[in-house]
């Protein structure tokens, strides 16, 4: 879930959410349906008959000297017309490709990020055969062994050369394979996730090569419309616990400030079993806010999450950012959001690594969404 890109295009989407018929939006885009039958590796690739699609990786990296880093790599596709072709060499006729890349240098409290915006034509594409994306010199490619290679730079300061290996099979969120985001028929997605990817590779930071290892989370979401009219933003969280279980949470915020009933918390057991819970099953409390000097957004960067686990045991987790200044300023897309590396603490002890996304805290965005 999450994804700031939605915000960029929300104005368009909202109008389309009015109603849809059968499995297509009014203007001809496919709508995801229940009980999808995926074929991999093809379905890790692009689905041009849907309007919106993204591949979203967030993870934690550790250097030999114990230095810590967080990173985010996102590739978006947005179709400009229904039934868009996959590989047109005409400029900008079919798709827009956006991509975001960020690196958090935890010890130095330094945040590097870059955005990309390209049309199809030559310098950006998504394959329909497998997970293979390119945006400028950034690429994300999965090979036949399911290993994923991420190569990217952030300006001239950072280079990421990471190999991500699924430590668990992918899962599909949502009841009956369909992740609902709102009351409208079209407000849904197919949501495929690798909850735990083992990482090896290196980062080059300011001309210095640093070998790293770590773990990451990867989402692949396919939809044609997601939010409903009354939603103004969302908080999203992914957690990889030390006990090899995972958690995913998204809270869709309505304009009155309350969680939308379609908000979800999902537990993933060690054997990949999913347990979906609604907004009544957990409690999300803001402990501290951080005001961005860039966007003036007041982000709830430190929160607690509490409720009952699938086995009925109670929990209270503290989501603590590794540092506050992890905002993507939205220079190209125009929408600022916070996406940061966090630790998960329970009873004062670190029990896992997390990434949290906070969107819709910018006033201008809220007014746009309304």
């Amino acid at each position, binding site marked *: 879930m999450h994804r700031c890109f939605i915000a960029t295009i929300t104005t368009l989407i909202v109008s389309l959410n009015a109603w849809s018929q059968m499995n297509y939006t009014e203007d001809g885009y496919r709508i995801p349906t229940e009980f999808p039958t995926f074929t991999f590796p093809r379905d890790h690739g692009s689905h041009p008959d849907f309007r919106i699609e993204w591949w979203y990786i967030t993870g934690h990296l550790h250097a030999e000297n114990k230095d810590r880093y967080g990173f985010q790599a996102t590739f978006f596709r947005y179709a*400009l017309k229904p039934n868009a072709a996959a590989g047109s*060499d*005409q*400029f*900008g*006729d079919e798709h*827009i490709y956006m991509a975001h890349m960020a690196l958090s240098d935890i010890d130095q409290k330094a945040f590097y990020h*870059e*955005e*990309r*915006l*390209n*049309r199809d*034509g*030559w*310098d950006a594409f998504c394959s329909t055969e497998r997970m293979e994306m*390119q945006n*400028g*010199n950034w690429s994300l490619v999965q090979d036949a062994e399911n290993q994923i290679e991420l*190569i*990217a*730079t952030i*300006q*001239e*300061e950072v*280079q990421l*050369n990471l190999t991500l290996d699924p430590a668990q099979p992918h899962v599909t969120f949502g009841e009956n394979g369909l992740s609902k985001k709102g009351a409208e028929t079209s407000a849904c997605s197919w949501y495929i996730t690798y909850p735990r990817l083992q990482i090896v590779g290196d980062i080059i930071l*300011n*001309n210095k090569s640093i070998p790293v290892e770590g773990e990451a989370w990867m989402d692949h979401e396919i939809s044609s419309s997601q939010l409903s009219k009354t939603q103004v933003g969302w908080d999203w969280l992914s957690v990889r616990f030390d006990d090899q279980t995972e958690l995913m949470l998204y809270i869709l915020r309505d304009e009155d400030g309350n969680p939308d009933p379609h908000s979800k918390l999902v537990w993933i057991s060690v054997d990949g079993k999913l347990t979906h819970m609604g907004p009544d099953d957990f409690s999300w409390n803001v402990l501290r806010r951080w005001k961005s000097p860039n966007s003036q957004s007041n982000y709830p960067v430190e929160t607690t999450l509490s409720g009952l686990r699938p086995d009925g045991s109670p929990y209270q987790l503290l989501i603590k950012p590794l540092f506050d200044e992890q905002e993507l300023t939205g*220079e*190209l897309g125009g929408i600022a959001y916070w996406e940061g590396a966090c630790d998960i603490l329970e009873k004062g002890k670190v029990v896992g690594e997390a990434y949290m996304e906070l969107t819709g805290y910018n006033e201008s965005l809220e007014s746009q969404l309304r």
Partner: protein
Amino acid sequence: MELMYLSRFTLRHAKRSPTTTIALVAIIALGVAVLYSVRLANRAAVSGFQLFTQSLSGGGDLIVSTPSGKIPTSKLPELRRALGTLPVVMLPVVEATAALPGTGLDSDDFDAKQITLVGLDLMALRNLSNARGSSGVITLQTQDQADIQLGANDQVYLTQAAAELLSVDVGDPFNAIIGDQSRTLKVAAILIPGELDAGKKESVFLMDLPAVQRFTDQPNAVDRVDLFVPEGSARDQIMEHVLERLEQLDSQQWVWMRSDEQRQATQAMTAAFRMNLTILSGLSLIVGLYLILQALEAAVVRRRSEIGTLRALGFTPQWIQRMWLIESVLLGSIGSALGLLIGWLLAQGTVQAIARTVNALYMNTTATAARWDAQEATLAALMGIVVSLLAGWVPAKDAASTPPIQAIRQERLGTQKTHFNHTKWGLLLAAFAWLAHFLPPVELAVGNRFPLGGYLSALFALTGAAMLSGSLLRSAPILLSPFSALSAHLRIAAGQLKRLTGRHRLTVAGMVAAIGMAAGMDILIHSFEQTVTNWIGHTLKADLFVAVKGVENASNRNKMSEKTWKTLKNDPNVESADIGHIMPISFKGAPTFLVGMRSEREWDGNQFIWIEAPDRKINRSQPDPSGTYPALISESFSQRYALRSGDTLELPTPDGVKTLRVKGLFADYGNERGSLVVDSDLVCNWFNDRRALNFAATLKPGVNPEEVRNQWSKDYPGLTVRTNRALRAEVITIFNQTFAVTHALKAIGILVAIAGLALALFSLVMERRRELEVQREIGFSRRDIASSLTIEGLFMSLYGLLGGLIISIWLGYILVFVINKQSFGWTLAFGLPAGNLWLLSAGIIVASIVTCYSVGYWSSTLEADKEV
């Protein structure tokens, strides 16, 4: 102490005779002004273009293109792959030309103003902020924050300058000719001045890349890709890697250069032109040197008694010489400062004329005003001061070496014996002039040559002729003697010419130089005009000529679609048609033209003026057994690339490298970059471009060309349809525009000649104040004195005129056969502009008479001790 003496010696004189001081400063100012204005205007006209798309996109670090033709978009990923993971932002660019009807400099509809239409990926443009940081962001910031409509066929983003040119605001529609179509475009937004440099000064249309691709009928191709390397500490290292990767590219398919090299290449393209202009304007300063010399000498004469007094008081000759030189530098500095100001004002007018020339010959420039330039100003001022110093040297030496008693006696200048043999040196320089014209040109860059030998020859010839003609003035009294009995005026004039002074010789020398230059320039222009007229007569035989509006411009990118030229060709009124598929290409690193000539006619003498005719009939579309295709080359092409008939060349095309064999060499005065002619179908296929640049139709007998012209103009508002007569007139107009600056330089030459004569006479009468007093006492009227001085001056003028005309023939020869040939590669037929030369002579004579008589009349009341 020295300052005090200097003040008394120089400033007192300046105060007492302000007229002469002002005249002296004015002369220096004029020389500096001419040099500065021409160089400034020239710089403005050439830099007006300067890849304004660079300022639009913030200036790419590298520019990648193909050796010839466009880059298919399908090949662009290859470029990205070549650069691997290097963080380089790539921005493909398409350029087209938009002609704006009704914005021309005159009311003629053909004279539509042209604007370069730049197609950029308006979305990818935003990525430049990653390479340039937010301060140098080249995002499409608009005044009204308009939404950008991707791919829209009518949405145009204008610079402020373009909006002012069109008098339009956001939302307004306007018409533009793009390709051969008239299109209605809409102002989507006006770019914020300051965000883009271009916003302030250049008229640019910006559209989304696919729209411009569609307009140019090339939906899958771009002209070039600009590469941007991010700013920051690792920039140099990344740039090094980028260059290494680019080196690995197949050079037959890709060419690249750093953007500063591109700027240099643009400048190199016009280097010869700019240097020619500089030298011509510099020559006028050298002629001005003669004027300054005259004026400073006159000052020595007037202040001779003062010098004598100083010498008598014990001041050393070295001190006096130093004072004179300091005075020269002072005058030079003041004159230069004034000259810079005048020059800057003059440049504002001259820039238009030079911009037209640059437009016609090289590329599109939008310059309309010349900016103050410190570098040029320093150069011009230095020239002014150095010339003043040089000019002051001889009078200073003369003043310092004059014995006190002689100085006080006010003896005539130049009557002292001199060891300098003018005749010997004149002959020696003439010999040098002859030898210099054999020197080969200096290679500046590929295809650009500087005719050093030609200029040296011209300089030696002018100097030599000036020296010789001064010596020849000795024959003047001999010529006058048979008529001496007729009047006292003649006798007095003959008497003065018998006692020739250095000043007489100098006057004639200066006139020879000035008239020689002016008449030489006239010969060049006449020869050019005659040749071009003959060429037009030979090549422009069709009844109607069709081109996309504004196509006269060398950098025009508009073309006629295949559908259009085929429709015209099939018009029932058309008997036959010649269609030109002309591609601007880069060959061996220099820009030139590949011409695909679609014609039913043979490649024969009816179509071309041969410099070297093919030895047999050419089967133009078929390769010979070795796979080489036949080609013709223009004379400029032959000169630039050192190719002759029988030679082969390797031409890179989008379809691969083609081997061509030169079958013939023809005269072409249409451009100086040269033309390579190949069969039209071959060119169209190699470049996958069937658009045409021009179309010439021969109509069926009995069809009225005017009627067809009117019909076609109505049917195709994007096309300019000219009748044979109209096109010829147009060519002559362009021709005249091209030589507008030369005419101005010619006028300055004549002005200098007459001013020099006036100054010389002025100095002479100042020296002869006592004689004039005696003449008045024995009953000479003011008219008598004026008449005798007129005869003396007229004789000097006639000798100057004769010498000038004779040397102008040599200069004309050098300009036509050496300087022009080496600079542009054009063979011109030498022609003497008899009418113009007669007019010039008559003008000089009349001006001389008026000037001499005026000076004589004024001087007739001079008192012996009066200081002026």
